[in-house]
């Protein structure tokens, strides 16, 4: 079983395609939509968590490729600038998903598998050390 969070970027031409239905029904993937920005006629974006067997996942990826939908791992979507970060912990107070936490040495750690790109942390950081690209 593979489980991953990815950002799907739809070109304008596919915003009328029932992509999520096809991923679930045709490919048999389990899907949870965590964040969506769909503007018909324009580019759309979905943050989803996908779960399935290796075969189901590769069928899904193949379908996305056919539809010219870009798939990017969530890992790259939120960055912590370590030179700026004070490890103060302010961001952890708004991270309802539990992706930002202080470790045993009180250093900030980012757990991408929990992130839902809500972006509340961006304004909470007093030194603007966090950035996202969604």
């Amino acid at each position: 079983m593979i489980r991953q969070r990815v950002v799907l970027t739809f070109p304008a031409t596919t915003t009328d395609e029932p992509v999520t239905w096809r991923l679930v029904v045709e490919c048999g993937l389990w899907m949870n939509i965590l964040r969506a920005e769909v503007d018909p006629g324009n580019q759309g974006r979905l943050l989803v968590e996908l779960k399935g067997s290796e075969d189901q996942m590769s069928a899904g990826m193949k379908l996305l490729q056919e539809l010219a939908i870009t798939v990017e791992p969530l890992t790259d979507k939120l960055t912590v600038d370590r030179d700026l970060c004070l490890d103060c912990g302010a961001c952890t107070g708004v991270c309802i998903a539990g992706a930002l936490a202080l470790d045993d040495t009180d250093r900030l750690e980012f757990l991408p598998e929990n992130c839902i790109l809500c972006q509340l942390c961006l304004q909470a950081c007093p030194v603007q050390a966090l950035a996202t690209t969604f």
Partner: protein
Amino acid sequence: MARIRTIPEINERMNSGQAVVMTADEVVELARERGADEVYRTVDVVTTATFGAMCSSGALINTGHADPPIKFSQAHVNDVPAYCGLAAVDLYIGATEPATNRADYGGAHVIADLVAGRQVHLRATGARTDCYPRSELETAISLDTVNQAVLLNPRNIYQNYCAATNSSDRLLHTYMGTLLPRHGNVTYATTGQLSPLLNDPGLRTIGIGSPVYLAGARGYVAWEGTQHYTGRPAGAGGAPIGPGATVTLVGDLKQMRTEYLRAASFYGYGTSLFVGVGIPIPVLDRELAESLCLSDDDLETIILDYAVPSRDRPVVARVSYGQLRRGEVELGGKKTRTAPLSGRRVSREIAEELKQMVLDGVFPLAEPIAPLPDRPSLSALTETGAWSQ
């Protein structure tokens, strides 16, 4: 066994390399395993530290005189207004003063830029007088070029502080960070068992003239801080449950280090300065040993509701730092996430560094010249309305 416990004798032990020095975290551990008696018997000095946003901070700069000379009547440094109602070329740059052209840059950033070795842009006007004939000046300055630069912070290292939550339906942007609606989180801003003034609740060893490790340089307690308050109800070991004593700190900005003096900009609030401070506390007697052994589970604070726009915000709960540090407290039967605002990682680093300096004999301890005053009450502002004779 009676042990010699005066500061001169501790300094002597330091100089002969015999002093036993521990950080406040280490002492709490030692007390947990072996008891406060063991701490009293074996430890000479305990180092404490904090690293948090301290709004009442600023830099006093004497730029040196220009030729022909000017008396600053208005001055901006990187577009941040600097106070110049002092002698001719004395400037005070307050940490929370915003730049005239942007909200996310302020006096704290000017100070941090200077400490990082960067040049800043000074633009000033002066009233032409016989003493000071010049009316305008514009130049780059840096810490290397100015005559003197002093960090002069009128209120630092609060002895405890209240924690914050938000009962309203909207997100609040405060100096206590982003507060989520409907008691969605609690933020707190001290380092608890590691915090300097919480380790000496009776202010027996910290007073006017006490040496402190201020942002990586030697600094001193100059005076009581603004809003210094000793009337707060006390909990374990006499430690106040909520904001208590404060101190005015002063030190040479030219000697300070960028990692312990960092500019911050709280969204929707403004700028502030993260200041790193360490203070060594001598274990003079059994009573001091006991307060140094107080752990996060012993030290408490109150959680205030920042949604209430009043000087007297309601108390929502009373909790220990142990609870706050474990990441969750219960508010109204609901588990609520907690988050710190003071950097514990950097604070520990400061406590460790100070420990090494005390061990090496390069940070001698000193008795305060005068104690901090007892201030059992705080005066609130009495508003008279429009003034008329």
